[in-house]
């Protein structure tokens, strides 16, 4: 049974999103145990659901997995960085992605192209994990810029009170970007390996645009690690690189529409 655990996860993610948004609506913050516990329960239900999915091909399973990793990273951000505000973005995003996956349908739409199922699953898992990390870097950068603007403008409202300190957001951005980039790189390499070993051809547009995106991501990591960019400049670089990833994905999907393949 795939649907029931996914529906339970969807409900718990929606609740986690509501808990994250509540303080911004003037309501009292939920206890930390609840803010952590609800998404963790959702993750548990989601893992059970994903474990029962027989094929990871197609947009829906990928979106479901992306939602799972986003919530896992949200819980990690809350647990390790005390950055509960991350949930303001990841909560609704994960809920939306999982909802969309359920609408598209998680049932397999075709058999795997080759017998290399385990490698294929590894490629998808690693790639989606990398993508989720880059999304987290983007979110941390966005939170950074919002808090930066509030602090500079001397506005002491909800953002000032509820967002994490600037430095912590910068650290979260740094860590997500530095871990996300090699993870995505590994995922892409595994993907090429699986395709070539399986004898499947890779679309030239995918290769060219994929390389360009990789270079942009590499630049964002490079300026952070090599040139020691921090703060606002690094946040802009991070946002630019993730936006590039999204734009390229949208462009490629427009060129080859359909839900049978993620890319």
């Amino acid at each position: 049974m795939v649907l029931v655990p996914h529906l339970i996860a969807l409900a718990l993610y929606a609740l986690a999103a509501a808990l994250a948004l509540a303080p911004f609506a003037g309501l009292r913050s939920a206890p930390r145990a609840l803010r952590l516990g609800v998404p963790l329960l959702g993750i548990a239900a989601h893992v059970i659901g994903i474990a029962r999915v027989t094929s990871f091909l197609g947009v829906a399973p990928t979106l479901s997995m992306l939602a799972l990793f986003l919530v896992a990273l949200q819980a990690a951000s809350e647990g390790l960085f005390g950055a509960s505000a991350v949930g303001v973005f990841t909560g609704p995003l994960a809920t939306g992605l999982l909802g969309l996956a359920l609408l598209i349908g998680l049932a397999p739409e075709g058999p795997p192209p080759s017998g290399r199922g385990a490698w294929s699953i590894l490629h998808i898992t690693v790639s989606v994990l990398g993508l989720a990390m880059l999304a987290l870097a983007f979110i941390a950068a966005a939170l950074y810029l919002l808090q930066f603007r509030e602090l500079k403008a001397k506005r002491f409202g909800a953002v000032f009170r509820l967002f994490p300190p600037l430095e912590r957001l910068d650290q979260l951005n740094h860590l997500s970007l530095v871990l996300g980039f090699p993870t995505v790189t590994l995922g892409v390499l595994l993907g090429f390996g699986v395709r070539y070993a399986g004898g499947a051809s890779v679309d030239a547009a995918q290769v060219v645009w994929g390389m360009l995106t990789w270079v942009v991501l590499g630049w964002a990591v490079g300026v952070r690690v090599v040139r020691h960019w921090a703060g606002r400049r690094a946040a802009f670089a991070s946002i630019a690189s993730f936006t590039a990833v999204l734009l390229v994905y949208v462009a490629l999907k427009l060129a080859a529409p359909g839900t049978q393949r993620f890319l």
Partner: protein
Amino acid sequence: MSITVLGVNHRTAPLDVRERFAHERREVPTSLERVLAAGARGGVLLSTCNRTEFYLAEADVAVPEAVWAILSERLGGGRSASEYGYTRRDRDAVRHLYRVSAGLDAMILGESQIQGQVRDAWETSKGQAGPVLHRLFQSALLVGARVRSETGLATGAASAPSAAVAVAARIFTRLAGRSALILGAGDMAELAATCLASEGVRVTLVANRTYERARAIAEQMGARALTLDEAWEHFADADIVLSSTAAPHAVVTWDHVAPAVARRGGRPLCILDLGMPRDVEPAVAQLENVFLYDIDDLQAVAAQAAAERRRDIPAAERIVSEEVERFWAWYGGLVVVPVLKEFRERLDQVRATELERALRRLAHLSPEDRGEIEHFSQTLLNKFLHQPTLALKEAAQAGRGYGLLEALKRLFGLERRDDP
């Protein structure tokens, strides 16, 4: 039995008067000794910069006079301390202490320092407090903790120095280990520096127009002294700059600090300008990663926190009321137990005497019949005592036991003290 509080606080007495009433820790036992000698069975003295209060158990009528006399002596000039004072009794006294401990009666609503001061007062007076006040202060600390954990009364920074800490804490992940540069020797900067130091910030440099003055303050804080002109270079290293000079114009200008800030490599710099007029040129805030706040900004943060705390007053008052009832139920029960015990003993004594007399007249009865009569007398007494005992306990728990208790003592000639 009764609980009384007599004292003065920031609402009833100005600072110069409160300063005279304040007791050092070593003075507390002596003052309490005098009050206890005047006829109280227990006492705790709570003395802070905002209040001096004597909490007393079973205070005789002469005790208030003794308290005001002690305080009047400190006031001097033939003035009476009672002009500045207040008295609360029984439930009101309990409620008062609970409100104090919760921060509801504090100058800065919800401030948490008072919790430690209540604990200190209790510990200092432990030998003289007696069991009732011991229990009262123990419960007051629990009430304070409960209010702070269940309401938002202690959240946010409700004073300008604590707002300085709150603002810095929105910039830096951890304040512990950060370095601070102090410009000038204003009181506010010193206060804010103390607040920051309590969070682990290291004051490493103190700069002043006069080097000697800078050195005096630097020595107090374990920092290095500089002149103002030497300070600009250190805008490249410091994490926090606290400024409070007496200069009539801005001393921290763009030209002075921009070159140093450019060498920070994007690290944030928090500048807290507590000077009046302002010490830092507003243009400095335009520098990348420089966050500049003046006293108005900090007061805005404090006012916002105070407004948010005020929203939680009803919830905090509800907790206080609940806990007052709980304490009073315990206290009421404590009061009736010895009287009821004596009441029962007295009637049992009457029963035994009359039974013995009757049995002497009824010598022809068999042992079984004698036992039956004794059992009857015991049952009758229990039935007779049941309703008054119940009524008295209920009245005591509802806080209406005192009158009934007095009536009982008067009607049955009970002389024993009703102490626990």
